[in-house]
């Protein structure tokens, strides 16, 4: 696997001074976040702190009220959001597989439609991605016939099939049975080792500590502290982060 870095043209992702309100409720209040090319950033914080919303701003599922999004150093707010999303893969807490399609169809759909691949080429691509996450043997099953861990593997394969430059994970293990969490985290860690730029919203502090390059702590729609895992977990500066860590650790 010496050609990993050659295969992945790692790019950086950043959000600058992001603001978003739903009505009178300010969800994000001037967030700055940076994910350097090829690095893994863990995003932690209490529920309702705006972590998931921030992810959806970065691939423009929500449009920010103010601020800018930079992919590979370029602002992408003027681009076609559909093209942007092809470059940024996303994995959800509840997998969100398409239940009316087989596992293979789930993975094939976007490459087929958006990259205009032939049915055969799309199938080869999808099978390769399923193989990568260890799900090739379930290609013909319906999502409902899979366990949660298996569904999340398929969802990861589905996102990877578009060949994204950045991956966003939104509490990818929160809906899983405890014994399945480890496998998914290992898969995410493998992706990071391959040089994928990743922003991972997680409640798994062990994962954040062991796998991420940087940890970002958010609360009340703002970034409170940023730093390498050692610093965040061993030498928290702010009282808010200390309180949060005392509750989750």
């Amino acid at each position, binding site marked *: 696997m010496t050609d990993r870095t050659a295969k992945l043209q790692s790019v950086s992702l950043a959000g600058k001074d992001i603001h978003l309100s739903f009505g009178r409720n300010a969800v994000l209040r001037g967030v700055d976040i940076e994910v350097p090319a090829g690095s893994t950033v863990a995003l932690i914080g209490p529920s309702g702190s705006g972590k998931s919303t921030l992810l959806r701003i970065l691939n423009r599922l929500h449009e920010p009220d103010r601020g800018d999004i930079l992919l590979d150093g370029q602002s992408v707010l003027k681009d076609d959001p559909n093209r942007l999303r092809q470059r940024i893969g996303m994995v959800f807490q509840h997998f969100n597989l398409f239940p009316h*399609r087989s596992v293979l169809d789930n993975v094939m*759909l976007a490459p087929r439609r958006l990259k205009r691949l032939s049915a055969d080429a799309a199938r080869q691509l999808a099978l390769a991605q399923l193989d990568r996450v260890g799900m090739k043997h379930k290609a013909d099953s319906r999502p409902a016939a899979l366990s949660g861990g298996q569904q999340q593997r398929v969802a990861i394969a589905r996102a990877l099939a578009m060949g994204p430059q950045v991956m966003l994970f939104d509490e990818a293990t929160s809906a899983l049975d405890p014994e399945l969490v480890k496998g998914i985290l290992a898969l995410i860690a493998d992706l990071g080792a391959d040089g994928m730029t990743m922003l991972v919203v997680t409640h798994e502090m062990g994962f954040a500590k062991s796998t991420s390059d940087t940890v970002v702590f958010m609360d009340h729609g703002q970034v409170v502290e940023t730093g390498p895992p050692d610093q965040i977990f061993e030498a928290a500066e702010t009282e808010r982060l200390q309180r949060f860590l005392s509750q989750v650790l």
Partner: protein
Amino acid sequence: MNVFAGKLFALVATMLLICSLASLTLAAPIAADTNQCRPSGKDGAIALPRQLATANRPREDKYTTADVEPLSSVDIGALGLHTPKTLTVGTLSQAPPTSCLSSNGHYTGYDNELLRAITAKLGLQVAFVGTDFSGLLAQVASRRFDVGSASIMATEARRRTVGFTNGYDFGYLSLVVPSGSQIGGFDDLAAGQRIGVVQGTVEEAYVVDTLHLQPVKFPDFTTVYTSVKTHQIDAWVAPAMEATNAMRPGDTAEIAGYTFGLGNYVAYAVAKDNQPLLAALNSGLDAVIADGTWAQLYTDWVPRTPPPGWKPGSKSALTPHLPDFAAIAERHRRAVDEVPPPKSVLAQLRDSFFDWSLYKQAIPVLLKTGLPNTLILTVSSSVIGLAIGMVLAVAGISRARWLRWPARVYTDIFRGLPEVVIILLIGLGMGPLVGGLTNNNPYPLGIAALGLTAAAYVGEIFRSGIQSVESGQLEASRALGLSYRASMGLVVIPQGIRRVLPALVNQFIALLKGSALVYFLGLIAGQRELFQVGRDFNAQTGSLSPLVAAGIFYLILTIPLTHLVNFVDNRLRHGRAGAEPEDPLDRIASTTSQEMT
């Protein structure tokens, strides 16, 4: 799987039952003579009831023309006909012997045969369309029909709406009561009794204006007579000829009295301002009186002694020679003096519902005419309903107010109105506007009305299905880079449709049954759907068996449909990989076509 096997068994059992019914039908002997839509001939002669021989006939006659133009001066190009050289006639399928549909699907009866003879004299073609009496005069006035032919009494009130030819028949009323009733004649009628009439007829006017009573209104003669026999009403004020014709030996009803109604004579109705057509029909009428055709048809179909001083046609028309009907009736009465004993309840039930010979008569017509028409109506209105319904659903969940709002209004209106109101409003109201496009065929309008109504329901079904799909599905699809439209079309809507498949099939079943309502619009014989075919046989024979046969056809269509949807639903739920079409759009198409079968 057990459940499914059980259902299969039920289905097979239903089919077997139906097949055995059919085979019984084939084994049954040829029909006893129950067809009421055929000439009775001289032997059916009726003397003028004694009560009427001395009664005062209403008012002097100021409308009958003194004479007519000679036939040779009629210009058939100037008659203002709807279709050039063809007389389009609105008539009834259920009023034997004056107008009815024969068992081989031709409009006939005394009125219509006479009109055929008249149009032959004039050199015109004639096309008959069946309709409802209550709507007939309005349709003549609006020139949807050139002529109304339905034993129409030419009354003052009706002359405000339409014009009338000279008389070709007279009418008097009879009072039909259940056997053993206390009512002995018109004088015994009083408030509080349920007195049946057919809506819009001269009998209704008579009960309201002359007797000052409130009648119970019925759509046709068959229904009102059945209600008398079953004691659901106390009396039926009936046109005498139709009543006599409907009554069979052994029926639990009798005639309690006779009276003259309103108006002097029965005539054809024509649009009020169409003087050339009126004059031409009058000329034709005098001509068929002169050559004896009138007397022949009168004797064949409605043989009864005319009241004193009445004759058909203009004042200068020849006085026709008629046999002495009173004498014939007297001879005939003596010959068949033995009245058969009343039938037992069981025999009555059997005749009403399980007259095999009638099944045998009705089933081929139901198959050849009724079934195809019902399917055409249902399938084409379903296509309209699905297409517009999908547009309504997508507009209804749109973020744009200018799309959401019209969809909402449309749905509220079409879902809030009874189907029959929509059919009448669109069928009769739009008729004159789009008459050129549809060639005055109400069939497309009926389909449009059914389809537009179905669209409102289908739209709501689709909308609820689409909205029930979790928001994460749209989000996941969009996160892959698929556009909103692609995400809706490939991910959200297919799932939404699947969820509402059972509700959609219910809607199609409702549509299948609702297709019976197009009969309100007036259909030619070949356009009749299952219900109308059954209804016409029912009217010809007075037996409910043909309606039961039509009902069985509906069940044959609807029961497998419900089982099919359960099967399809199951299959979609549990998925049969490999058995599904490759392209998701194909898949939408294939689900819809399954719904339509």
